[in-house]
């Protein structure tokens, strides 16, 4: 079976501390995707995190606007400071924006009901995904996630880069209690048995494919998913069907 992939965990742009020379432009990304059967990708621009959300968001919109394979995630800040341009959900749909991310630890704010309660409530109702990059240490930790989900239990959360050591002790309670929590696959693939045991316990519907590119390799995640000890229909769900379903269910109107 030849699997196709929809990658949900990629950033583009020039990384400011690029000692490993890993930065990748949208053009370079697009040229690399076909040989690995990656048909679509959800990306954010590294400037959203490292320069300023407003600067990065606009760069991202420009990069994905004429590239059909790419979808985007915008970065948000507490609305009270009015630093980030707000788009209507109708505009977000037109601009192929399929989620938000946040970097409270890097951007120095507290993610909770006080700062973003109304906004998170609307995202919850609209089934609009929020992507959390946990391992970077710049977004949120598990205590934050547990706290947010207590208040917004139906929020669609995609937990990216859940940690370099197996994180089942953190993530399985979340999968058990909150139906709209999903795990991005790249580091689950790194953990021995991570994909197989999560599927066995919670079903393949709770995992969406990601690579962590350009920080990690596409080939690592792909080779593991293709050879994982799960059924082909589960591989397809993880590889692209689940994220397509999540996007389809967003209530933009």
């Amino acid at each position, binding site marked *: 079976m030849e699997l196709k992939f929809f990658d949900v965990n990629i950033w583009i742009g020039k990384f400011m501390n690029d*000692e490993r020379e*890993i930065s990748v432009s949208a053009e370079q990304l697009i040229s690399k995707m076909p040989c690995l059967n990656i048909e679509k990708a959800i990306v954010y621009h590294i400037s959203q995190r490292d320069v300023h959300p407003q600067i990065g968001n606009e760069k991202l919109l420009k990069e994905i606007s004429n590239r059909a394979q790419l979808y985007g995630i915008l970065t948000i800040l507490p609305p009270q400071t009015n630093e980030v341009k707000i788009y209507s959900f109708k505009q977000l749909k037109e601009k192929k924006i399929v989620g938000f991310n946040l970097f409270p630890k890097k951007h120095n704010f507290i993610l909770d009901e006080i700062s973003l309660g109304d906004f998170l409530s609307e995202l919850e109702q609209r089934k609009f995904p929020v992507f959390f990059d946990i391992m970077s240490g710049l977004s949120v930790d598990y205590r934050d996630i547990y706290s947010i989900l207590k208040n917004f239990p139906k929020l669609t959360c995609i937990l990216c880069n859940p940690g370099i*050591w197996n994180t089942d*002790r953190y993530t399985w309670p979340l999968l058990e209690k909150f139906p709209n929590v999903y795990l991005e696959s790249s580091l689950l693939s790194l953990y*021995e048995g991570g994909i197989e*045991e999560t599927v066995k316990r919670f079903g393949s519907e709770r995992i969406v494919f990601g690579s962590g590119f350009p*920080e990690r390799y596409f080939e*690592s995640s792909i080779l*593991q998913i293709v*050879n994982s000890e799960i059924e082909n229909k589960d591989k397809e769900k993880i590889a692209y069907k689940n994220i397509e379903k999540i996007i389809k269910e967003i209530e933009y109107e």
Partner: protein
Amino acid sequence: MNKYWNEFLKKGKIKNLPVIDIHCHMGFFYGSHMPYTEPEKMAERMEISGVKLCVFAHHYSLFDPEIGNKIVIEVVRRFPDKFKGYFSINPNYNLKDNIENFEKYNDVFVGFKLLPDYHKVPLSDRRYKNIFDFADEKGIIILSHTWGGSIYNGPIEVEKILKKYKKIKLILGHSLHSAWDKTIEIIKNYENAYLELCAVMDERGVLEKIVSEIGSDKILFGTDFPWFNHHYYIGSLFGAGLSENEIRKILYLNSFKLLFPTGKGE
């Protein structure tokens, strides 16, 4: 993509390319859930990715060698073709009979495993001296956990050992992670130092740099299995753009030569 990639994608393994994982463990670990820690399950999983041999230190032996090394003996005797053992040294346990037991079970143990960061004892501490003296005299493998910024097993401590002991085969577990320039310098300067790739391959860009500087002859495939997945790390070698020849050396030939210098042992 090279033809190895296509074959790994289709079959999960390559018939004439066995894999040796030089850095493995077994058993429960306090800090993390690991679903596949029993030897039977590990052996089954090794088949999927064509891993012929895992050289391991049992988790218990790292933290309580009085228990763990006995389990290693039992497991290797049960699965002699699948597993070989490291004799783990915890210098905080004043065990007098380490060397005696290592020699007594020479069908089981192929080297020593040190974990200085966890035991909080630097590599050059006198409590390791008898092990290094013995290993140097016999040319034995020592796999040590190493990490760039560590005062216990960072570049300074590693160099102290390599300057003194010329015949041990010192495998730098995790390749002095994060001190990549120093890693390269050490491999260039010391013939008896080898790199092991666990935790290196989940950072894109590092392996490419190392191979471009030192080639692939002294790089060994290791994963901390059952912490990490073989296919994930094998995929990284392709992601790094290595040639079939380089991949063959890293996955198999280099470790084979180290473990079986006479060419016998398959």
